[in-house]
């Protein structure tokens, strides 16, 4: 027989929650949970760490049919069997019985993948409401959903909503309030021995639990450490019998218990879905969709994905960014726009200035116009523009996460964490920002390793673009550069993963459907990024020119260059190359532009180009990235990395020089 929910038993009437109705939003990542949270709460939101963790929980005030309450936005959760810190926090919040009502936010487009968690939430025996979000997109995809039938089968309210527009929110508020005074849902029943095992284990739990012991029994059977700890606390005998019984029952399965339980849950989901979900995509689009779905799956598999990635990188990076952006566009801007029009115009403009030093500030070797503006507009902007266009195509097509998935597999073979893929991919756009993103990694080991690899072997977009542009006509030089940088990445990554202790965590990433990129989206994204980049880079390039001009006028630049020259000479590079290493520390792209200039003046032979390219890529990160490293990893670790990277970069450059000269 079903009991009636009392919502903590604090009151029988709907107005009787002294601390307000507490509603927890639960669901997998990417289901629009936070959008729904914003809809249900006001502007004032408190974000605090969950006790004892660094995981943030957002809380906001909301009203439900006139009853004041608090809404908790929990971290994304795929299953109650938690595998990450975020999931453990959501699990604890649910098992503690903190919420009066649990709202499971479900992506209506992906219902079959969502309902396994619904079944686990039913096991909690708490008032539950299903918010069927993104109904508009599900309908656009041709999916026909029957929420009433699903509600009847689950025994809980199912409310279709579109969180971003607010459609269905009023009904959801009402359902949340009524869930509190409705019968508590029954836990699901599973077949093939799992249901029997859970029933037996449930019978062993005699303690008083904040939620239905059925939830603890299911987790105990799957060997969950948090559930074991809770059972030890709540059982009189310290949970010894129950934990031993769980082990016995689990050992009776022909496969690991978490797998058996997951399989039975999915079977139960399939039964549930009958007459609840019908798919009828429009016929005209069905063939295209099938083809893209097949391609989307194939691109995530190494056999197809790796060669496809090689082709994409060759066409996109080498031909388009390197040859077209770095060759055709830069040549035109440099030789036509700057040499014929812009530079002569400014030279005439400042010709009347009283001193050589003043004229040098604008049109000298380190002048604002001849160096700062020319580097920013004539060299970097066309290259990063081409890069951003290529990147926008990858992004809008949904291919980017598939690259991350492929790289994830390589990372795991190196002994690195799959989750570290995200900052590594971001590093190809901007290493400074990617260093900040390493904070999302779970363990210190991963954070340190990812920070080191970003500083050492991941070139930023501008640096990568310039190097590709420089080496586009010289495949052998490019091959040496790729081998040296990839080799360094693999070597340092593999050694680092072994030196730094710790187990790699699991990695989850949603794969959106592959689609044909839309020209409007691609152009808008490219324009937006170029605008942002230009606004950031131009002032810094101009500032760098002023600083270099001051250093040049005071003789400090000559002294600094003289200090770097011995190291540069050891690499077999001309003395002028010392400047680009100083530029590179100011900003990676500034150094890359300097390298471009040096090569353009015919000062580098192919071996010197390879050596300079490799050393500059591996050389210390720019000031902004170094400051971010200090902020994120602490001064001691950042300085230790700097102490390692500087001699290592020059060492690799030295080796490349020796090997190439010998081979020549």
């Amino acid at each position: 027989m079903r009991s009636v929910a009392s919502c903590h038993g604090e009151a029988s009437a709907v107005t009787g929650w002294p601390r307000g109705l507490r509603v927890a939003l639960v669901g997998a990542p990417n289901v629009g949970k936070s959008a729904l949270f914003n809809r249900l709460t006001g502007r004032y939101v408190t974000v605090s760490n969950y006790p004892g963790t660094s995981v943030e929980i957002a809380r906001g005030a909301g009203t439900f049919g006139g009853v004041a309450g608090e809404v908790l936005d929990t971290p994304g959760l795929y299953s109650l069997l938690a595998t990450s810190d975020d999931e453990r926090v959501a699990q604890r919040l649910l098992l503690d019985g903190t919420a009066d009502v649990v709202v499971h936010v479900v992506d209506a487009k992906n219902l079959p993948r969502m309902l396994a968690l619904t079944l686990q939430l039913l096991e909690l025996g708490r008032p539950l409401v299903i918010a069927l979000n993104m109904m508009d997109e599900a309908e656009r995809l041709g999916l026909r959903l029957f929420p009433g039938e699903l509600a009847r089968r689950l025994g809980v309210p199912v409310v279709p909503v579109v969180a971003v527009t607010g459609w269905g929110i009023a009904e959801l508020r009402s359902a949340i309030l009524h869930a509190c005074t409705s019968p508590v849902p029954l836990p699901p029943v599973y077949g093939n021995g799992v249901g029997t095992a859970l029933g037996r284990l449930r019978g062993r739990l005699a303690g008083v639990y904040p939620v239905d012991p059925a939830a603890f029994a299911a987790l105990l059977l799957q060997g969950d450490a948090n559930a074991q700890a809770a059972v030890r606390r709540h059982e009189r005998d310290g949970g010894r019998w129950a934990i031993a019984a769980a082990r016995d029952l689990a050992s009776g399965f022909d496969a690991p218990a978490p797998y058996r339980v997951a399989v039975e849950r999915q079977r139960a989901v399939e039964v549930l879905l009958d007459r609840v979900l019908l798919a009828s995509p429009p016929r005209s689009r069905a063939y295209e969709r099938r083809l893209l779905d097949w391609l989307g799956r194939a691109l995530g598999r190494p056999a197809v994905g790796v060669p496809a990635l090689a082709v994409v990188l060759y066409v996109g990076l080498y031909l388009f960014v390197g040859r077209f952006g770095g060759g055709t566009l830069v040549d035109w801007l440099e030789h036509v726009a700057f040499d014929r029009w812009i530079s002569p115009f400014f030279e005439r403009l400042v010709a009347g200035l009283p001193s050589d030093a003043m004229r040098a500030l604008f049109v000298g070797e380190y002048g604002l116009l001849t160096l700062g503006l020319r580097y920013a507009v004539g060299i970097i902007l066309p290259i990063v523009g081409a890069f951003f266009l290529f990147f926008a195509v990858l992004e809008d097509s949904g291919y980017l996460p598939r690259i991350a998935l492929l790289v994830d597999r390589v990372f795991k073979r190196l002994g690195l964490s799959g989750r570290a893929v995200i900052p590594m991919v971001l590093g190809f756009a901007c290493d400074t920002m990617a260093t900040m993103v390493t904070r999302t990694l779970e363990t210190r080991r991963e954070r340190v390793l990812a920070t080191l690899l970003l500083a050492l072997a991941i070139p930023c977009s501008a640096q990568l673009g310039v190097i590709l542009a420089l080496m586009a006509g010289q495949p052998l030089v490019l091959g040496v550069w790729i081998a040296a940088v990839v080799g360094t990445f693999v070597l340092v990554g593999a050694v680092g993963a072994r030196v730094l202790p710790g187990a790699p965590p699991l990695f989850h990433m949603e794969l959106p459907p592959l689609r044909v990129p839309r020209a409007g989206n691609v152009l808008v994204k490219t324009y937006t990024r170029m605008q942002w980049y230009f606004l950031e880079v131009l002032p810094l390039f101009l500032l760098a020119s002023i600083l270099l001009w001051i250093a040049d006028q005071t003789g400090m630049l000559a002294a600094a260059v003289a200090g770097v020259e011995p190291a540069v000479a050891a690499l077999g590079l001309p003395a002028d190359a010392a400047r680009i290493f100083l530029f590179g520390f100011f900003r990676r792209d500034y150094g890359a532009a300097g390298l471009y200039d040096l090569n353009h003046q015919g000062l580098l032979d192919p071996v010197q180009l390879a050596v300079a390219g490799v050393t500059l890529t591996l050389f210390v990160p720019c000031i902004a990235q170094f400051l971010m490293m200090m902020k994120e990893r602490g001064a001691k670790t950042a300085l230790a990395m700097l102490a390692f990277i500087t001699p290592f970069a020059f060492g690799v450059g030295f080796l490349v020089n020796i090997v190439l000269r010998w081979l020549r």
Partner: protein
Amino acid sequence: MIARRVVCGLCALEFLEDMGQPVCRACPLAGICHNVRCPNCGYENALPPAWLARLAGRFSP
């Protein structure tokens, strides 16, 4: 005003533009920047000015 929906280009998380990571508020370019950082993976998604998005929408099929 309803915040625009953003689908992260990297992890596919769907979020509202005003839910981007608060770290961006400290950036000196925050006032003029049109990127919004995904609250899940930190990826910088380009969010065009409203007028440009409308213009692009007009020419999209």
